[in-house]
Structures are given as structure tokens and as C-alpha cells.
């Protein structure tokens, strides 16, 4: 049976066209034969088109999800690349270990976390996911499996971390976990007022918190308001399991009608979220799940945005440009009358990212998410680009569906060096647009 054409989606509801699926459930499963290009596909939690490939094969890895070995003294885990963080957390939390760097959802694969060199709320201390990757087993289209590490195949190692799936299929990853004594996070909330607060509070509090992020109410007119959300692992010994791995409680069953998520409903959500939390200045111990993955409580929440889906726009600028960039971009979003729910500001620290194309670099990262309103949204984003590049900033491929070759090359000065490590069979819709591949 040859693979039929199948539609794949990214998290922002972009659809592939003319794509066939190839399943990689076992390390020695065959890659698609012939000349047609392929791209690994994890759980499709990238927002734009970096996980899609039109007229090629998407190599699905989510069934490649076995553990290979674990050293319970050192926390060194070797697992297949299709393991999701959700699966790993169920395994490691009861044993007193935690994922060293986690994005805002646990429904991502380890391979996807490597390929986007993802960051989390602890970037200012820990750096990126790739900083904890000790070795990678990489399958190339020439039939070889290359073991890559800082000591072996170093160039390929640095290209594969943040390599957008273009260097081959990651089969397994050796990952250093972080020890914990409790599944709880001691969470601290603090209301923020005015642009500068978003940067000052973060800098002041950074030393005291392992995790921090600032959420901004983008629908609020006038001086911006928001919440500084920070936390540390609780250090008291407590039971490590006990109801801490909940499955999503709600599910959006299908795409909702377009425009359900609009300026009005987003305003309501933002205001509600702000008011519910702004008064809770105190410290609270909360389960890690709610602290790191609040959105995972609703499965397939992206379907609420309707057929046209949603857009995330994330960039990083040097720290000194942070307040200016935030002021300008927020102003542009507001005057375009577009609303955002997940507007987030976070300071990246100085820990160097290991990948040639890693997005995180010292500075401030800002992220908006917007319902897709077609041409109006495109115009707005072009306008935001002007601010970002005037500040010598960079855009994040995991969230992108539109950056030009020029924008990409400005964002990633080591793109030429990266190109020499690309597997000749690999490509993505993103890599074609940005000139990384033909």
C-alpha cells in the first residue's frame, strides 16, 4: 500500500498540501524511498510552517516513544525522540526528576524540542533545552546513524540543535534531567504597571526565581498592565506523585465558527485573567502542571480560533531595546485593533545556546498571539517586522509562517555555516521560503 495524500496541520492551523505520511515507529523503520524530500513531524505544536512540507513526506515520530535507559543517581535519561514531555514527566516526576527546560505545553516531542532548541521560563538561569542534550542519535538519508555530541560530530551536533528537522531524523536523545524534591512550585504573582515595570521587575526578581515570565493584558488601553509570574521548585520533601498528571479536562471537539475568538472575547478573557490574579499578591504552592502548562487543560484549544487559525509572533531584541520595542509593537497591535491573549515578555539570560540556528540570545523576547484576520494581520506583522529589525532583533521559526529569506538571514547570521549540515533529502515549507533548501 503506498501512502495516500494526507493533510497535516501545524498548531496555528496551517495545512499541508500534497503531503504523504511515512511512519517511523521503530528506529530501523525505512525512510521513504526515492528522491522526494521528507521532514520529521513530531506533535505539530509549531505554530507556522516549519513542521510542514508540501509535496513531500512527513515522517511521523510520535510512536517512536520508548525509554532506553535511565540513571536514577545522575538523572541522565536516554529516550527515543518521539517521547512527549507529558510521557517523560509521568516517568520522571515520581522518581524525583524534572524536564530541565520546558515550553508552555507538554504535548511536544523531545525531537521537536531539540529541533527548535526550545526555551522555557528558566532561560535566564538554565539556557535552552539544547544545553541539557548530551548526545543525539541522528538518522541521515544516506542510511547512516551518526552519534552527535560536543565531542563527536560536533558540527552536526550544533546544527541539529535548533536545526528545524533539516539535518535528518533524530532517533534518540540523551538528556540531563533536573532533580526535584516535590512536584509543587512555589508561585509568586505580582501586578505590573507601565512599560518599564515589565523589564525592571524581571531584572530585580531574576536572582530569586528559577522560573519567571511576564504576562501582559494587550487589550487594556493606556499604560499597560500585566502580571509577573514567577516560581521555584518547592524544596521540602513531599510525596512526589499524587494526582499531578491530569489529562486535559476539556476538549474543543472541532473547529469553532470563525470570529468566536475576536477583540471582544479576548478583551473579556484578558480582563478576567488580570482581575482574577492581580489581587493574589501572595505566594502559593501549586502543582507543576498548572504552573507550566495552563493551556493544556483544554485539549485542541487552537480549534477555538476557527478555520483560519491563529498566529503567534515572537521576537527577541537586545535588552536595551526591550521597553522601546514593547511600546512600539504593542502600540501597533492596538492601533490595528487586533487583540492578543498570550502576550508574554521574558528576559533571556546570558547562557549561550548551543545550536547554530538557536533563537534564544541575550535580550528580551516578546510574543503576541492573534486570530488570523488575513490581509490585515499580514500588514500588521510586516509593520512589526520593521520595529524588530530596526532594533537588530530576530524572529522565532517555531512560530513563523511568513518570514522572508532576508528576515531569516538577518535573524540567523550563521545560516551559511548551517547549510553545509543539511541532509540533502530534507526540506520544509519554511526552509524553501527562507532559502535554506531548494
Amino acid at each position, binding site marked *: 500500500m503506498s501512502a495516500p495524500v494526507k493533510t497535516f496541520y501545524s498548531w496555528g492551523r496551517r495545512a499541508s498540501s500534497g503531503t504523504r*505520511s511515512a511512519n517511523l*515507529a521503530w528506529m*530501523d523503520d525505512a525512510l521513504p524511498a526515492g528522491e522526494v524530500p521528507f521532514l520529521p513531524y513530531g506533535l505539530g505544536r509549531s505554530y507556522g510552517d516549519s513542521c510542514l512540507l508540501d509535496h513531500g513526506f512527513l515522517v511521523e515520530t510520535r510512536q517512536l516513544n520508548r525509554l532506553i*535507559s535511565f540513571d536514577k543517581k545522575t538523572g541522565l535519561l536516554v529516550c527515543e525522540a518521539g517521547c512527549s514531555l507529558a510521557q517523560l514527566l509521568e516517568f520522571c516526576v515520581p522518581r524525583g526528576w524534572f524536564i530541565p527546560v520546558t515550553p508552555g505545553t507538554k504535548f511536544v516531542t523531545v525531537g521537536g524540542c531539540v529541533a527548535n532548541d526550545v526555551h522555557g521560563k528558566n532561560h535566564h538561569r538554565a539556557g535552552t533545552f539544547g544545553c541539557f542534550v548530551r548526545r543525539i542519535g541522528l538518522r541521515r538519508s544516506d542510511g547512516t546513524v551518526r552519534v552527535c555530541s560536543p565531542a563527536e560530530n560536533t558540527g552536526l551536533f550544533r546544527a541539529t540543535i535548533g536545526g528545524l528537522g533539516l539535518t535528518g531524523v533524530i532517533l534518540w536523545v540523551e538528556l540531563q534531567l533536573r532533580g526535584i524534591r516535590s512536584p509543587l512550585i512555589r508561585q509568586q504573582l505580582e501586578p505590573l504597571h507601565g512599560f518599564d515595570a515589565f523589564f525592571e521587575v524581571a531584572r530585580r526578581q531574576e536572582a530569586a526565581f528559577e522560573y519567571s515570565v511576564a504576562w501582559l493584558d494587550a487589550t487594556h488601553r493606556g499604560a499597560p498592565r500585566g502580571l509577573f509570574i514567577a516560581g521555584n521548585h518547592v524544596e521540602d520533601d513531599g510525596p512526589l506523585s499524587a494526582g499531578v498528571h491530569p489529562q486535559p479536562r476539556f476538549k474543543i471537539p472541532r473547529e469553532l465558527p470563525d470570529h468566536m475568538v475576536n477583540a471582544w472575547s479576548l478583551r473579556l478573557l484578558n480582563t478576567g485573567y488580570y482581575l482574577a490574579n492581580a489581587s493574589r499578591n501572595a505566594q502559593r504552592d501549586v502543582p507543576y502542571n498548572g504552573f507550566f502548562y495552563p493551556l493544556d487543560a483544554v485539549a485542541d484549544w487552537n480549534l477555538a480560533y476557527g478555520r483560519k487559525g491563529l498566529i503567534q509572533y515572537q521576537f527577541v531584541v537586545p535588552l536595551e531595546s526591550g521597553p522601546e520595542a514593547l511600546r512600539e509593537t504593542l502600540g501597533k497591535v492596538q492601533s490595528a485593533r487586533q487583540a492578543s491573549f498570550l502576550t508574554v515578555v521574558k528576559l533571556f539570560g546570558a547562557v549561550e545556546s548551543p545550536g547554530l540556528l538557536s533563537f534564544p540570545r541575550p535580550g528580551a523576547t516578546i510574543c503576541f498571539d492573534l486570530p488570523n484576520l488575513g490581509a490585515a494581520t499580514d500588514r500588521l506583522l510586516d509593520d512589526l517586522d520593521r520595529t524588530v529589525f530596526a532594533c537588530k532583533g530576530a524572529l522565532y521559526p517555531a512560530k513563523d509562517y511568513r518570514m522572508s529569506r532576508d528576515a531569516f538571514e538577518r535573524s540567523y547570521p550563521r545560516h551559511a555555516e548551517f547549510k553545509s549540515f543539511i541532509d540533502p533529502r530534507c526540506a520544509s515549507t519554511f526552509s524553501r521560503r527562507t532559502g535554506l533548501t531548494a
Partner: protein
Amino acid sequence: MKNHLILGATSAIAQAYCRMHAGEDTRFWLIGRNQSRLDAVAADLLTRGAASATVRTCVNGDYAGLEAALGDGFRALQAFDVFLAAQGTLPDHAACENDARLTAEVMQVNTIEVMQAALFVAKRFESRRAGSCVIIGSVAGDRGRRSNYIYGASKAALDTFCEGLRQRLLPAVQVLLVKPGPVDSPMTALLAKTALFTTPEKVAADISAAIRRRSATIYSPGHWRVIMFLIRLLPRQIVKRLQA
């Protein structure tokens, strides 16, 4: 100690079931046809803390080999609490319609070997007066469909088989037939994933609950019981005309 004997241990459903139970007090005897895959499954279970996970391979149609693989398990671990038959193949239906050998292979993998293994195990469960014999059938066995009636027939046979075996072994020994709806596993890799699909983890959790409750037949997810009940109510005259 809890001992599990698995036929088709590389199946996604079987793996999910084993993972749920992999703890210090569990031992696994894993039978399949592919050594390197079985080794990967065993490493996973050992990493999760299983006391032991032993692998045996055998090839299609070699009944003596299958018997040896099963017998070794009983000799090594003395007794099993659960036997799970997860081996199964979803064939290219059109090819089967044109090649009787392919149809024979489907029956061999899905039906004959599952029955052989179950009968081998039944004798030992019977004499110990304990154990759960779990066989994975399918909703496809409940009614013939134009697009997959050969697979359906191989699974329907298991229904009748389980009914009789249950009469023989009850009350001491449980015989559980599991009828999953479509599951996201390598078997269905090429199919588009509709909202009807469930996960191997869900089926594994349903199997575990059914073993605890000592159920006879379960659908997974449970709503398939209602759907299949309604479909079975359709008069044969109407079913005859359906094309799907």
C-alpha cells in the same frame, strides 16, 4: 510478583498496557517476531522498573516454535497472572480478495495463532484455577463490511472462540475479549486520523480496568458498545445494500 505473558508484544496497545504495569513487582515474557523491536520494548519496560523482561521470537506458522516460546515462559516464571494476545494484522483488503494466500496469512496471524496460544495458556490457567486470558478482537468483527470483511471475519472468529473458552474456564479463569474502535497505532499509520480514533493508552487503561472488574467483553472506548449495538440492530436486508 505479577507476571504478564504477551503475544505480539511490539503492538502499540500491548506496549501501552505493559508500560502501565511496569513496576518493581512485575515480570514480562514478551513474544513476537522481530528481535530488535522486542529488545527495544524490553529495555523500555526495564527502564520503567520492571523486575524482568524476557524476549522470545517465533515465525508465522511455526506452532512448535510458538509452543516452545510459551512453554519457556511457564518454566521460567512458573505462572502468569495475565496473558494478552495483541498480535494482529490489518491487510490490504483488495489484495486479499485476489490472493487466497494473503487471506490465509491474515487468518494465521489474527486467528489461528491467537487461538493456539490461548489454548496452550488455558490449560495452565485451568489447572492453577487462576489467571486472565485477554484477547484483542475488534469492532470490525461485529459486522461484515465491504471494505474489510476478511479482517473482520478473522476477528469475529475470536468472538465465538472466547465465548466457548469462557464457558470452559469460568469462574476461576477470566476470558476477556477486547473490541477496540480505530486506534492510532502503526497498523493504521496510513489512515487519516478522524475524531473516531483513540489512543493505545486509552485501550490499555480500559483493558486494565476490565481485568480488575473481571469483565467478559469490552469495547474501547466504551461508546462503541452503543454504536455497535445499533449497527447490529440494522436488518440484514439493509446491511446488504450498504457499501462502506
